[in-house]
């Protein structure tokens, strides 16, 4: 396992993705933080600066959006590299349990998320003062928000990686982003009265709702992150679907490794 993880980390550090991720994370966090530092909201002649949980909510929103993009790039371009084309038979022949492979990928991707979050907290401290982490810092809320962030991004990464393994990189990009977008649109529709009204008249939309309900709950992540930042509570029942999806996608990924001829670009 350690050898696999080490190898995947070397792969990550030697791809442009790593440096792209570093640069993009810096910019993506620095700009909104600088703006938040400069902006004062005026509400009914009251002046209010953006601070505390609100800033972390903005930061997690940026982290999730950026993380989603990185999950797609890592899942589509980095993960399948060793398991497709002219490398598949060499990888298959290694005497290593196939179930260890997705775990090593998950740990490697976790390092990317950790790196992203380190940049986020360092920049926050740099602009707002590191003493913000000492007193009144919502540590439990932040940890729970990170748990949601990690699970949802790992699920996204494995969704893209599994699709890329079975259908190829271009199809995985199109399919994965389509699934993600459909989940977001459905989440928006079904959360409104309009959605409930249309659903009562259309059997087709009821079917769409059933499909939406079994998809990973991407549209609810930020709501949960926001709720956890305000009032941390464990266990959160919303974690369950993420864990189930992570295990399910990991299992399908292992099937792709175990039966390489079922995957794309092998033969």
């Amino acid at each position: 396992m350690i050898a696999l993880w080490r190898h995947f980390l070397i792969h990550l550090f030697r791809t442009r993705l790593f440096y792209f991720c570093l640069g993009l994370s810096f910019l993506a966090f620095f700009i909104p933080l600088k703006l938040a530092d400069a902006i004062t909201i005026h509400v009914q002649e009251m002046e209010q600066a953006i601070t505390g949980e609100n800033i972390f909510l903005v930061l997690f929103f940026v982290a999730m959006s950026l993380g989603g993009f990185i999950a797609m790039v890592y899942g589509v371009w980095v993960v399948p590299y060793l398991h497709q084309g002219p490398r598949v038979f060499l990888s298959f022949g290694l005497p290593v349990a196939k179930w260890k492979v997705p775990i090593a990928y998950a740990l490697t991707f976790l390092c990317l998320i950790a790196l992203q979050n380190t940049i986020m907290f360092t920049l926050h401290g740099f602009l707002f003062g590191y003493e913000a982490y000492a007193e009144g810092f919502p540590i439990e809320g932040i940890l729970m928000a990170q748990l949601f962030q990690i699970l949802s991004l790992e699920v996204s990464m494995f969704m893209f990686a599994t699709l890329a393994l079975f259908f190829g990189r271009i199809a995985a990009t199109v399919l994965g982003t389509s699934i993600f977008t459909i989940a977001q649109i459905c989440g928006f529709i079904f959360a409104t009265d309009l959605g409930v009204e249309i659903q009562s008249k259309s059997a087709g939309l009821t079917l769409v709702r059933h499909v939406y309900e079994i998809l990973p709950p991407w549209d609810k992540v930020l709501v949960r992150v926001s709720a956890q930042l305000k009032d941390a509570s464990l266990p959160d029942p919303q974690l369950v679907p993420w864990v189930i999806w992570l295990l399910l996608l990991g299992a399908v990924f292992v099937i792709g490794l175990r039966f390489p001829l079922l995957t794309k670009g092998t033969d």
Partner: protein
Amino acid sequence: MSSTVNVSEIFKIDDVTIAYGWRKFVAVESLTLRLEKGGSLALLGLNGAGKTSTIRLLMGMVRPQIGQVEIFGSRPGELKALARIGFAPEDATPPEYLKGEEYLDFVASFRIKGKTARSKAVSEQMQWFEMPSNRRIRDYSKGMRRKLILAQALIGDPEMLILDEPLNGLDPLFIMKLRERVEAYLKNGGSLLLSSHILAEVEKVCTSVAIIREGKVAYTGSSASAVQQYGSIEKAFAHFVGRSEA
């Protein structure tokens, strides 16, 4: 199939049929092969005859539609079987972001216990295969990549070698050197399954041959008897694949 385990048997393939895809394209039909410990078997056949499918079957990459396969007393693809096989596939490319030495170290980490023993084995292979240690694989020539694939198959002294077209891209001097290495490996009790179109090399290295024609075994027997009967492996091959004018 008998349930008794023959300890001297490396693998046995009994009446196996392999078919691919929804249309069930038959790649191998009613194939029966054996390899005893210390033996060396050459798989010969035209392109598309079913040699690579047979190798994939032994590695556990494909499952037979009909028939039974055992390798080292296990099902193909099981870890305890993979740990005893050194496999050099045809047309494979090692990960290009690594240096040759790093790739061998990665493979060795699954085959050799102990960092010191692993480092020693890696540097020995690098030296023997005359590979530069400080160059990334992406900068390797075709021949050097081929050497690296052979080196990773040989690392950790596996009990069996499966070499699929191992000589592609190698220069004549290195082919001679490799032959000596494989001969020494066989003398030390190793077993070999070789798929190659270089019939002169097959005749020098392998003690038995299986000629596959359109997915079926057309001939199986010792190299010596094939040479005795037909004059050479090349002539036996031409006879069994149906191109006697070759």
